[in-house]
């Protein structure tokens, strides 16, 4: 586990100009990401209007009344309240290359949390493997980022991925629709396409961030191999050569494409992240291009 901070200060300063974006409008929620033209409950002052009967007396501008003897009502900008949730995979399969893949996923999660905190968004983080773990809600500004880093740093790997169970728990726990960011390798022997489809059908906007290490996509080993599944401990003995490696990579890419199709088909987005790339390139490259953040 890394001992230092997940993200350094220079990188965090660069993140401050970014904002998390979503595309869908969610039933029962006011606003989207952009500032609303309508007045309502909020903290940012928008305008004055004449007082009408039934208006909230707390919004009356009493100073103006004392001077003009007319009642004016202060109107405030409606603030978006779309919930942002983040699921981070802590299954054993994330332990590739000595935990480097999981460390990379944590950094990615921390970067997105910081972007959300800077824009006063509230993000609920939930780890998962076979089931959903205890989460953390982060919000209230950038000065609340330190607990987020502590929380992410304290996450531990373990368990076998069970997307179906996780999705069932998530839907039953979080009834309100919103943006759902899933940072995972999406490697579940039972398959994760169907549970993800459930989430999309329920009304969540999916942002799938698939993290893989180089050995996940292009295994460096050749010859006689005795393979052990990190989660199930299933074994497979085979001879592996260059041609087989090509076939392996093709199969992996095919799976990536299927995840991407699933996300796009349901109005969501997909970002494939190789842990070999610098995290700055991913944030300001892939995530910006796919309009996850801007």
């Amino acid at each position: 586990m890394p001992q230092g901070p997940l993200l350094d200060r220079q990188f965090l300063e660069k993140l401050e100009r970014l904002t998390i974006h979503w595309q869908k409008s969610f039933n029962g929620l006011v606003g989207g990401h952009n500032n609303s033209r309508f007045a309502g409950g909020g903290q940012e002052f928008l305008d004055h209007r004449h007082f009408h009967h039934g208006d909230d007396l707390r919004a009356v501008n009493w100073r103006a009344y004392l001077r003009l003897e007319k009642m004016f009502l202060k109107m405030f900008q409606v603030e978006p309240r779309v919930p942002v949730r983040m699921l981070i995979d802590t299954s054993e399969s994330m332990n590739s290359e000595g935990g480097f893949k999981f460390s990379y996923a944590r950094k990615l999660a921390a970067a997105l949390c910081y972007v959300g905190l800077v824009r006063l968004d509230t993000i609920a983080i939930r780890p998962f493997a076979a089931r959903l773990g205890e989460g953390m809600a982060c919000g209230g500004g950038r000065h609340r980022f330190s607990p987020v880093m502590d929380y992410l740093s304290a996450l531990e790997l373990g368990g076998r991925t069970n997307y179906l169970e996780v999705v069932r728990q998530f839907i039953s726990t979080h009834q309100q629709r919103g943006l759902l960011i899933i940072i995972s390798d999406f490697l579940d022997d039972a398959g994760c396409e169907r549970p993800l489809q459930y989430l999309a059908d329920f009304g969540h906007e999916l942002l799938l961030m698939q993290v893989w290490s180089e050995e996940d996509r292009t295994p460096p080993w050749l010859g006689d191999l005795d393979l052990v599944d990190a989660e199930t401990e299933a074994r497979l003995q085979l001879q592996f050569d260059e041609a087989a490696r090509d076939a392996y990579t093709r199969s992996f890419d095919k799976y990536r494409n299927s995840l991407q199709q699933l996300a796009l088909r349901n109005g969501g987005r997909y970002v494939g992240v190789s842990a070999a790339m610098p995290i700055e390139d991913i944030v300001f490259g892939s995530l910006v291009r796919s309009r996850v953040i801007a």
Partner: protein
Amino acid sequence: MYFLNLSLLQFLALAGALTIPTVLLYLLGRSRRKQVVATLRFWVAADQPAVVQRRKKIQQPLSLILQLVSMLLLLLAIAQLRLGTPLATPRDHVLILDTSAWMAAGSGRNSHRTLMDEARDKAGAYVKALPASDRLMLVRADGLATPATSFESDRAKLERAIAQSVPNATALNMEQALAFAQHEQVLSPNRTGEIAYIGPGRIAADTGAAAPPKNLRVLAVPDSVENCGLRKIAVRRSGTDPDVWDIYASVRNYGTVPRAVTLSITFGGGPAGARKLNVPPGSEREVTFACRTRAAGLLEATLSPHDAFPADDHAVLELPAEPELALTVYSNEPEVLRPIVTALPRVRATFLPVAEYRPDKNGSLVILDRFRPPERPMGNAIWIQPPADASPIPVRETLEGVPFDHWCSGSPLCTGLHTKDLRLASTYVFEGAPDDIKIGQVANGPVIVARPGQNKVVVFGFQPALSDLRYELATPLLFGNILRWMAPELFRRSSAAASSAGIVTMQLDTDVRPEDVTVQQQDGTPLPFTTRGQTMRFFSGTPGTVRVQSGDGETVYSLTLPELWDAKWEAPAGVRRGLPGFRAATVLSRDLWELLALLGGLGLLAEWLLYGRSEGRIRRLGARLAVLRPGIRKAS
């Protein structure tokens, strides 16, 4: 069948060191590698066959066998496996041909042939006796062991080198020659042949240090030791009369019977002395002569009658002329200075009146007695009480009736000077520079000053021959010191010696420091030398003249006498003697390393073609066949 380059033990060690890692690497390369992966779903999709072989079974054994056999073949090639016997192996021999000075002696059997001719014949016979495949190095041995050829199989080149071998001026150093030969053979240990020595075995000194090598062969050249010759001649100026040369000569009888010889000395072609000597066998006689001359010339010493080795019957020495210092005294009162100047040996003084003063363009030494020269002298000069405004060293003041205070110390100019209650009637006191040597001083300052430089100057503030100083012993001593300081080469003690080339040992005077010693050859090039205590040694391998300068003495060595032997080297009983019979024992042997190297290379190439380059192809073929087998087998 045998190995040329390696012993059997070395071969087995190398074979083990090669085969064990190969087998281990082979097994490691074909062992199954356990690997934890994130998922197996894509591996299954890679469509690879499950492995059905058991792990403990060696796969592709032919590949392993082919590799091992090929490597062994290559190792055999490196070890140079040969068919035949080791005796048939080409070998490297070293032939030590004695070229010491004694080899110029007559053989005794034929008056026209020398020992060198006999040795050359034996060397030629030895070369002819060698197998054609053997190589030979010719080493000429005298005081130094000098290789004349490298290990050479070209017989014509060897015979030319043997024919060009001639006696040198030094005695044989057998120990060094054998050590050199052994060292050369160590460089090719598997081809070690013989070390053959050809010569009479007369050595400079029997140190008896090391046992001769086991592969030594001696081809003795018989010699007759009946020889009587000059051992050394030395000449030096007589201590009592500088015009006389004392000559010391040493004659040695190397033979077994007493010899009656006559030693004649001639100088410049004229007889200078002769002496009859009866020299007992194995001993030396020393005789002395005296030769009066101041001139230079050649001193020759001749021993008669001549014997079988005439090279040490005659010696020539070059005697240098006695040096003289030309001194011109300009004085209107020459009688005042004459007793002082003429008392000095090796000084040729000319007295001239002051009016005839001319600056000498040759820069010879002048004495200027109380006058102002129109031009300054161009060489060294002694100024005696010059006019105050013409003094080369500024005059500070003039004093009268002043007591002389003291002489300087620590300078060669002041060696031995001593006076008591000396009073100067009238004298200058000089304003000396810091580098000036203040020879004599009164209480107010220096009155006799020496100024070193390119032209050395000594200035007297008073006329010593007209003062009370003329009664003192210090006066001639002071002038002697001044002349010695101005012309040191004039007072250099010279001697000459004729001795043999080789190591020359000389005893230095006790006051001579080693850094003051120079040794030069005839052409002026310096010769290396060593000093230990007051003993100085240098080596000259060739005849010639060597000049040794130490302190104020010079010795000229005419190294014209040959260095003869002091002892006879006797080969131990086990040493082989006479010409070898190589050809009879020679059986043809055959090299196999080319064939072995070719087979080894072909084996490795075949292994690579069958199992290395096409490994992927073979495996893909196996994969296609495995389609018929059950699918992936999971252990859990």
